[in-house]
């Protein structure tokens, strides 16, 4: 084989310097720094050629190397008895009993979705699904956490419409129900929307597939769609800030093909029924580069591939293009030698390409041949182990200012505020969005979109005589306002709210996947947001015994120096033993509503950093409501006890918009009314009193409203476990929310507003 690049020892110093300079420029264009370039030259003992540089730049990109966050990700709690696989694989795996495992992960596709909302979000869904089925799991549910700019921003409508169509376009077609998620609007996302997609799958506990390559000499197999010039250097793009000129640099975006995705899913799962797959890895960000490098490096081995054998869609693709293409719907596998023919038959049945493109080696090197030349020959270790890890300076800014309720000189009635709440797209019903998602395909969806705080999907095949079976509960959550004002509290809050959502649906929280979306980590304050929220997430996850098993980091979400609100999205998964016990948010007639985590003495609610503040003053500031982790744990355990005793008919946690907003949401579905039993101190208050407003709209944490028709039994348990509680009253059919003499509110009117807000913007 002819060498195409210069080995250090073969050339003299001048030549070396000249060559190095020209390649350094190339390296800088690819997003590497000068230091990184020099490190590479040293480690591989030669000047890298274009293909090799491309491979390094992809592997060293923020997206693949986690260079800014790695130091801190390591501090996340990742272990528990029920964890089978923590971070480091394509997805996390937890034990859910009956020899079954739940496999799940969340991933961002923020930048591509801004450039091309339909394809960007569609390929985001496709990518996260591959992460899950690559591990041998059949995906059973999808969720998505979306953040858009101000609803008045000229691009927002177009982005919402495209992203929602794209998510549905992929999920609906591949036939996996989209059962939950969240959508928020804030001007900080005007130039950087967030599209985080989460997938949950189901596998047999002893049939999990991993990515570490095994056995020198074993065949390396490429399957799926052909490689084209799609999204070359997407991983680097995902790690760069948007500027005015980036519209020109836009590489071709990837186009997803959910149909091929479906074929790939079925073909892979069919092959995995046999015992021939030794390791498997999807081609996600940085395509063939990161898949081959990660497989080899995890196995402590090397790989020798012939790029002429890679199925391509376009003519004359260079080795650089083949290695960096981000064409979708592709996988790399190591098979048992001798099994290739049988495996090929399966892929042919599904009309997919199947190519034996090389071998695993024990050289520890990545060697690539193209057109009879050696296009790349580099050691694998430096690509992974020497990838930079920065200890970036940071400062955790915590706003300590306490905004008291008398700060709000309100001249509005409770009804005025509620109307504003439900006219706000952050609170209003997202039905316009979720109706575009197929939520019932696969026939196992029990609760989804809007019906409950967490979605519940039945575990197929666990039906017995007594029950329809077990269910998996899942939710995504984050309140960026809180994280901005206090990253530590905000991080804790995201975990606690997710856990509350899970228990409010009747399930037990088990584990977390997280998507850390932030601005530019080179800014001390942004780095502080990252570190702070990781600290908060860690503390809460430890207390609740919900370890982090997978995740994703998306940095540089900035446009022209304007960063997004820090948005560490928590995806949480839980389990419910009998789906009959799952809980929705809607109350029935003659139910008693009781708040857990609040008592008669609670009068002044926390309005600092609340949605109320944002609605009344158009901004927010001050400390977010504090989190008491032990209290949260107590409420969560209490919920499980109450539900185990079959005492509940529904539940809803109190979050954005506070108590009154939550009550309305519980009454909407059945168009009910409630005479609210106000605490004595408020009985003679007025509808415009700031104290009343704080009680109604404060966002104090650790609270869940339950509905029950067994009030006495509930109360005696609450007393026994020393839980603060407050009985709100009993639902009736008047469709009026009465707060003694303070105010009367029409639930049906509010619900019409609630339903109309988003369609009136989008249609």
């Amino acid at each position, binding site marked *: 084989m002819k060498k195409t690049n210069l080995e250090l020892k073969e050339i003299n110093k001048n030549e070396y310097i000249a060559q190095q300079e020209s390649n350094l420029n190339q390296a800088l264009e690819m997003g590497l720094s000068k230091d990184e370039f020099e490190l590479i030259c040293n480690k591989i003992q030669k000047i890298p050629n274009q293909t090799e540089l491309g491979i390094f730049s992809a592997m060293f990109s923020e997206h693949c190397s986690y260079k800014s966050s790695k130091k801190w990700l390591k501090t996340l709690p990742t272990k528990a008895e029920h964890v089978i696989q923590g971070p480091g694989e394509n997805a996390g795996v937890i034990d859910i009993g009956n020899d079954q495992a739940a496999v799940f992960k969340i991933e961002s596709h923020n930048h591509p979705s801004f450039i091309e909302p339909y394809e960007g979000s569609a390929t985001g869904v496709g990518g996260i699904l591959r992460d899950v089925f690559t591990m041998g799991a059949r995906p059973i549910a999808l969720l998505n956490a979306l953040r858009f700019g101000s609803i008045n921003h000229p691009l927002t409508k177009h982005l919402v419409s495209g992203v929602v*169509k794209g998510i*549905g*376009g992929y999920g*609906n*077609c*591949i*036939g996996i129900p989209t059962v939950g998620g969240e959508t928020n609007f804030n001007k900080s996302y005007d130039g950087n929307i967030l599209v985080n997609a989460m997938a949950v799958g189901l596998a047999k506990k002893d049939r999990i597939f991993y990515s570490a390559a095994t056995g020198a000499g074993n065949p390396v197999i490429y399957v799926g769609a052909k490689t084209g010039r799609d999204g070359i250097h997407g991983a680097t793009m995902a790690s760069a800030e948007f500027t005015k000129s980036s519209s020109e640099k836009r590489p071709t975006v990837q186009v997803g*093909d*959910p*149909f*091929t995705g*479906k*074929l790939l899913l079925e073909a892979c799962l069919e092959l995995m029924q046999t015992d021939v797959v030794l390791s498997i890895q999807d081609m996600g960000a940085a395509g063939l580069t990161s898949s081959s490098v990660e497989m080899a490096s995890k196995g402590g081995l090397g790989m020798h591939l012939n790029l002429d054998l890679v199925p391509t869609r376009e003519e004359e693709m260079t080795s650089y293009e083949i290695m960096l293409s981000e064409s979708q719907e592709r996988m790399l596998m190591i098979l048992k030698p001798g099994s290739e023919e049988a495996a090929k038959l399966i892929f042919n049945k*599904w*009309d997919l390409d199947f190519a034996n493109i090389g071998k695993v080696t024990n050289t520890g090197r990545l060697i690539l041949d193209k057109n009879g030349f050696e296009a790349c020959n580099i050691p694998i270790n430096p690509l992974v182990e020497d990838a930079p890890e920065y200890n970036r300076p940071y400062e955790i800014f915590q706003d300590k200012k306490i905004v008291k309720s008398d700060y709000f000189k309100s001249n509005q009635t409770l009804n005025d505020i509620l109307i504003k709440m439900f006219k706000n797209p952050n609170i209003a019903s997202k039905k316009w969005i*979720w*109706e*575009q*998602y*197929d*939520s*019932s*395909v*696969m*026939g196992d*969806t*029990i*609760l989804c979109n809007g019906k409950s705080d967490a979605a519940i999907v039945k575990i197929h095949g666990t039906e017995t005589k007594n029950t*329809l079976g077990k269910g998996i509960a899942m939710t995504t959550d984050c309140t960026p306002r809180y994280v901005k004002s206090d990253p530590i509290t905000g991080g804790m809050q995201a975990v606690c709210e997710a856990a509350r959502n899970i228990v409010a649906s009747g399930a037990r929280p088990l584990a977390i996947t997280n998507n850390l979306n932030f601005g530019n980590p080179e800014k001390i304050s942004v780095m502080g947001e990252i570190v702070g929220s990781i600290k908060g997430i860690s503390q809460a996850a430890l207390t609740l015994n919900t370890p982090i098993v997978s995740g994703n980091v998306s940095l540089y979400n900035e446009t022209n120096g304007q960063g997004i609100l820090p948005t560490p999205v928590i995806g949480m998964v839980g389990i419910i033993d009998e*789906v*009959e016990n*799952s809980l929705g948010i809607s109350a029935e007639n003659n139910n008693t509503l009781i708040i857990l985590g609040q008592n008669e003495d609670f009068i002044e609610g926390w309005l600092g950093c609340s949605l109320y503040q944002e609605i009344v003053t158009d901004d927010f500031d001050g400390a977010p409501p504090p989190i008491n982790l032990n209290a949260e744990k107590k409420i969560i355990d209490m919920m499980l006890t109450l539900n185990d005793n079959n005492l509940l008919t529904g539940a809803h946690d109190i979050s954005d918009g506070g108590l009154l907003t939550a009550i309305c949401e519980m009454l909407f579905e059945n168009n009910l009314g409630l005479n609210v039993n106000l605490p004595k101190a408020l009985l003679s208050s007025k509808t415009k009193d700031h104290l009343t407003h704080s009680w109604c709209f404060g966002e104090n944490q650790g609270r869940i409203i339950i509905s029950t028709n067994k009030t006495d039994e509930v109360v005696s348990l609450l007393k026994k476990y020393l839980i603060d509680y407050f009985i709100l009253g009993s639902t009736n059919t008047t469709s009026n929310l009465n707060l003694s003499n303070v105010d009367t509110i029409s639930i049906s009117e509010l619900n019409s507003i609630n339903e109309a807000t988003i369609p009136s913007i989008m*249609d």
Partner: protein
Amino acid sequence: MRAAVAIFPGSNCDRDMIVALKKITGKSPLKLWHKDTEAPNLDLIVIPGGFSFGDYLRCGALAARSPIIKNIKNHISRGGALLGVCNGFQILIEANILPGSLVRNKKLLFTCRETTLEVQNSLQSPFLSSFNTGDYLNIPVAHNEGNYIANTELLKELENDGRIAFKYKQNSEIETDYNPNGSLHDIAGILSKNGRVLGMMPHPERSINSLHGGTDGLKFLTKSIEEIVG
């Protein structure tokens, strides 16, 4: 009961339909692959929902050119019963087994939700003979192209011959979007001339569970199968 479910690349409600049929008959239906040209004598073939061939070109168009279609046509000429659900309905139309066209939903949005269907039973059809005209069923839809269109003559013919099986039902006078896709005459499903082929957009197999989607789909499928077996 000898039943089979026909599967195309991109079908995605095949498992759901198999679960439903098994729940009713106690045994798993046969699976037919789109390339199969041979099939045993069957009482019922179901073409399930999904995105056969990715919905590319026109929904159902590519599937309607699969080898199995000949087989399915033989089945109906022998008097076998045939049910096409959602994409299955689209395939039956593209294969010229049922008349008319299914085009993009009026709002141009995929729509997944509950609908109420009003049964129209005037033709002797095994799918409907256990129901009376005016009975209604709550069954969900989930589709992008369920907007049934036909020219005036065809519509008249369908109405006159009692070949409209289901119409989306308006639950209250104020309800304006009870028809999820804008289909003419609120048509949700139609029958062949002899009543033994039914194409419908709503998914009965997603309504077999009291906890989610209700059990009207189960009722419909159970009665249909009882009638088909005779």
